[in-house]
């Protein structure tokens, strides 16, 4: 029998932890990591610190290329999976390559989401998911002092903290769509607004943005239903959507993310999903929960790796640490930490 081949789709914390765990648990299999991004794996939660200048670019990346060489892991950057045939265990890549696998861990993470009604102004909005995005922020911040934040997700809050440290003026529009996957509620809105204002952020209370106009390179005017705001730049933060669109017709169960059991298994043998792209079943809650955040992702990556190698570990999360907001279970507490 030829050597087993394990493939991990993704290059985030969950994917990297999974790869490392496979090796550290003694697997001799060929391990391939596929990443649609052409840059090295990085720690997304450090991006705001990078923008504020408190850490250098190199600290963003968690592993040098030499690590992969040493561990004999084929890290394939900039190579996008566009489909999977689970019955034949084959992955199709955008450049028409076909890869076979014996085991698969899907850890594609999420991508910035911009609600449909804002997509009209998308070009005028900055997001923050990758080091490239961060560099755009850095260059923009050289010439602007005021920023309007739209949304209210984890990233927006930690960026706000970083920008405040830089002495920037922050205006904030908390949007009802901000808290995906948690449905909007008056309570959450109030809690967040209060916290922001206590840090010196000007919260703009409105329901709707009507128009966004670029006045000059570093001045944008935003008309809302309640007022008109002038700012140097707009940041859009509406959470991440699981990056699983390419799997829609693959046969996997997908709700918001890929549905997996408490062992992180999908409905296909030897196929796992972890991190931002997965929704995990919780037997105690009898429901699925979504993981958000770096630590969670890494933990899940490790469990998936063990299970792929034959263990039966449950993704154990204390039920009380999972917020039940409007029926969606979320293991996070981002705004209380802000």
């Amino acid at each position: 029998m030829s050597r087993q081949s394990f493939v991990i789709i993704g290059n985030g914390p969950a994917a990297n932890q999974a790869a490392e765990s496979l090796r550290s648990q003694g697997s001799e299999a060929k391990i391939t990591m596929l990443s649609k991004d052409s840059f090295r794996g990085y720690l997304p939660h450090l991006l705001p610190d990078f923008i504020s200048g408190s850490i250098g670019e190199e600290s963003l990346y968690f592993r040098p290329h030499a690590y992969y060489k040493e561990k004999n892991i084929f890290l394939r950057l900039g190579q996008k999976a566009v489909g999977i045939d689970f019955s034949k265990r084959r992955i199709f890549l955008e450049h028409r390559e076909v890869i076979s696998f014996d085991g698969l861990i899907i850890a594609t993470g999420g991508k910035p989401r911009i609600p449909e009604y804002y997509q009209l102004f998308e070009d005028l909005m900055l997001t923050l998911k990758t080091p490239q995005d961060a560099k755009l922020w850095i260059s923009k911040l050289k010439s602007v002092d005021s920023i309007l934040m739209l949304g209210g997700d984890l990233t927006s809050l930690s960026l706000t903290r970083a920008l405040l440290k830089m002495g920037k003026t922050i205006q904030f529009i908390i949007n009802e769509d901000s808290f995906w996957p948690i449905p909007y509620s008056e309570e959450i809105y109030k809690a967040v607004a209060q916290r922001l204002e206590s840090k010196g952020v000007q919260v703009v209370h409105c329901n709707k943005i009507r128009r966004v106009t670029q006045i000059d390179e570093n001045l944008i005017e935003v008309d809302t239903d309640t007022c008109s705001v002038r700012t140097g730049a707009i940041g859009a933060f509406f959470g991440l959507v699981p990056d699983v669109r390419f799997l829609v017709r693959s046969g996997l169960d997908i709700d918001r993310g890929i549905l997996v059991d408490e062992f992180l298994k999908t409905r296909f043998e030897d196929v796992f999903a972890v991190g931002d792209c997965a929704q995990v079943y919780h037997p105690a809650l009898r429901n699925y929960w979504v993981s958000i955040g770096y630590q969670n992702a890494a933990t899940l990556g490790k469990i998936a790796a063990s299970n792929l190698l034959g263990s039966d570990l449950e993704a154990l999360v204390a039920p009380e640490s999972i917020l039940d907001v409007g029926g969606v279970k979320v293991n996070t507490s981002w705004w209380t930490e802000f």
Partner: protein
Amino acid sequence: MTEVDFTVEVCGMAGDGTIAVGGLINEAMSLGAFSVLGFDSYPAEIRGFGRCVTNSRIGSSEIVALGEQAHALISLNDEQSRSRVPFLAEDCMVFFDSAPPTKVTEDKSLLSVLPPGAQIFGIPFGNLAVSAAGSARGRNLTALGGFAAVCGISPDLFREVIGKKFGSKGDHIVSVNLKSFDAGYEYSKSVFANRLGNIFSDVESNAASPRVMLSGNQAIGMAAIDAGLKLYFGYPITPATPIMEYLAKYLPKQGGRVVQMEDEISSIAAVLGGFYAGARAMTATSGPGFALMTELITHGVMAEIPAVIIDAQRGGPSTGLPTKTEQSDLHAAVFGGPGDSARIVIAPTNVSECYYFVLKSFQLAEKYQTPVIILTDFFLDNRVENVVAPKASEEQKACSNVFPEESSKDNYQRYHYSSSGISPRAIPGMEGFNFTATGLEHTEKGIPDYSPETHSRMTEKRHQKLFSALVDLKEPEEFLSGDSLDVGVIGWGSTFGSIVEAVQRLRKSGFSVGALKISSIFPLHSEIIRKFMAKSTVVLIPELNYEGQLANLIGHLDSKPVERLNLVTGTPMPTSVIQERIYQLMEVLAQ
């Protein structure tokens, strides 16, 4: 002003237009006033298709050695390009066809074996070429366009050289190729907008003189033409054949003739006949053919007939490695053949020297009335460099034959003794100077004579002539040297470029190292070599042969043993290997 030292490889199957793309890169970068050294490799076997690889090293300063690690790879066939992965820099840019006509399995995919640091640029070569020019045949130019855009090379350079290259095939072909190139260029400009580099755009040109892209073999052919060659006799053999092909094209235009002979023996015989009758004649061969020539070369020595012989070395012995490079014919060139048969052996180290050495060889052969052997090798023959356009002065072209005085008519002694060993040489057609040249030992008049006195004196005369030639032979040249050296590196032939580069690098790091280039392999400028060896604590001689043939030839000149670095990998001597060896020697010295 930034410096650039960039190596790009193109890899594909025969028929992919690989060599064409490599050539266009060389020409375009040369046009952009960069220094270029290119080397293509492709299989000698006619049967089936084979892998083609071109390697172009492009620099803002003079490039003297082959690039060891590629900074960019243009893959026209991913399966073939897998073999190049060990030669890629960690952060190599890789240009590949992102929309091949058929699906590719992992074991044939290039991307599956690239190091994680590789920067990949997927461009639908074929599709772009089809939509731009109606045919996928231009996909190699599309790839080239993508490369130009990402590296920040002015597309005008490429447009100009594409126009030149395809101009003879008509405007339509030029336009199709330009369209394919532009399609790749524009695609990459927009798709990779945030990944575009300016590797070349900020670099200032280094060359004032008009430069011309030449291979070693072309330079040899050009030199022969400029020297007024009248006759070329040869027999096909890799890697010398291109010289014959070049001359077959250009020699008839100046009234000369190329005759493809029945073997190497007849080739050298005809060269001797040609020179004997007063015409400049030449042959080129490689080791196996050279071995066949040795008897007649010694006839040229004995009968004192000029000849010019190129030995384009390849891997040996015997048929050996026809398409691989080696420097293992030195012994054969210097010593090969019966008897004490000293002849002149010179070895160029780069393309420019290929020209000037061959040009000079005709004068040397005429003046010293002896075969002159020029040792090149597969790498030197086939690599291209954009050299300052070589040009021969009238003085360099002039006939150097020493004709007899009119006064010696009717009492002419063809092999007259003289202190220099040189005797005036008459040419058939000159009235009153009839003589018979012979491979037998002979008197001054050319009459066979085996007496102890005659053989002793004539042997001495022939060797004296060679020592006299030292004044006309290029002296060993010191590079980056000093009054005393920790390590003195001596080299010859195509290896010398790597030696200079290794020494340059180490001197930048403060090491006391220097290099000595030996162009005249025989006779040797022994005193100069001895002095260099004496002032070096350690003498290192890197060569592409197993036996250390130059080391054997000059090792005795100094009392301490020389260090040898011998590779028979069939590939050019890597700079890094020499560098590493010098490091080791320095470490030993430090202890």
